[in-house]
């Protein structure tokens, strides 16, 4: 588990004040609830928020919108991966059939 200090010292330009604001906003939800303990993912998320605000120049009220969309994309990706993993377990001819059906349904305009 990482502490506030760990995050601040490892993620440049993140101060304790900034980090606490992000946690209070719910943008970062420390992996360990009781003692505030951050995980590697929490730290990477802090770096992401910093980049959004500092490098990319988004306002504070735009950040939650972006985070929400990013979280949804990762949620969707995880579900998609689960589905593809499940499809991979199917017999060869079933997979071929599925692939054919999907290809047929894909909009022509794509790509």
């Amino acid at each position, binding site marked *: 588990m990482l502490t506030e200090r760990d995050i601040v010292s490892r993620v440049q330009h993140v101060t304790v004040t900034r980090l606490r604001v992000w946690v209070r906003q719910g943008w970062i*939800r420390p*992996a360990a609830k009781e003692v505030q303990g951050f995980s590697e*993912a929490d730290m*990477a*998320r802090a*770096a992401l928020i910093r980049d959004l605000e500092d490098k990319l120049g988004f306002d504070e009220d735009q950040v939650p919108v972006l985070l929400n969309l990013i979280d*949804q994309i*990762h*949620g969707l990706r995880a579900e998609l*991966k689960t589905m593809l993993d499940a499809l991979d377990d199917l017999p060869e001819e079933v997979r071929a059939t599925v692939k054919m059906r999907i290809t047929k349904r894909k909009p022509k305009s794509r790509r």
Partner: protein
Amino acid sequence: MADDLYSTLGVARTAKAEDIVKAYRKLAKKLHPDLNPGDKAAEDKFKQVTAAYDILGDAEKRRRYDAGEIDASGQERPQQRYYREYAGGEDGARYRSTAGYEDLGGFSDLFGDLFGRGGGARGGAGGQRFAMRGQDAQYRLEIDFLEAVNGAKKRITLPDGGTLDVTIPAGVDEGQVMRLKGKGMPGVGGAEPGDALVEILVKPHPVFKREGDDIVVEVPITFDEAVLGGKVEVPTITGKVFATVPPGTNTGKTLRLKGRGIKRKNGKLGDELVKLTVVMPDRIDDDLKAFAEEWRDKHRYDPRRKLREQA
């Protein structure tokens, strides 16, 4: 910690290698601890300048510093681990959201409910998945006495217009509650539905009464049947039978008809208890009056002797 090595040495970022050497030597000469005994500040400054030169004076290290791969102290600067590297993994699962596509359920009958909050192998929406068994639903069902005794199929009409088919097993008793698994309220989040609890109410029967697994019937008999005995037609739950009334039967005499009662769970049958009541004719005619008077004079008997003695 030195902020920027170039400013520490007082050179431009674009300085040539020989300019860096020159700048360093000039500073070093001024700051070297041996040339400045007792000057702590100079020593510190010297260390900073030397550290800066250690990096900027070395072509490879300078390149890495410029590229941000190492920091001003020469430490490997950890490359930023981007959030996307974690987002797909276990650690990132807390943040993944599936809240936005619950409507996928409308796209596929079979697979739709796999996604979103309801299903899915892994939790979305902050890892919170909510599932709760449906509530039990309570119903009351009034059935006829013979339906309770013999079993029946009944249909309950629910408040929402739906129906519930209930198979009443033979021998069900008043107040008994039947549990119909999964017929209650639907579960939430893929959990199983609740049960329907049907409490059985049994309408009283004009003739039959129930005592445990036995059926009790009151059967009136005539004066002459009481005296002479004979076969008497008796109703049972499975139809009429003839019971034998012994000669000299009094009111209150009970006949037990084996196996004419209610079917027990173990397959055995209860009995029917026939309570006999001697009933005089509606009108006592002269014949009967004359016979009773004549009979009384010759056959006096005392049914109340015990009563007198014990009172």
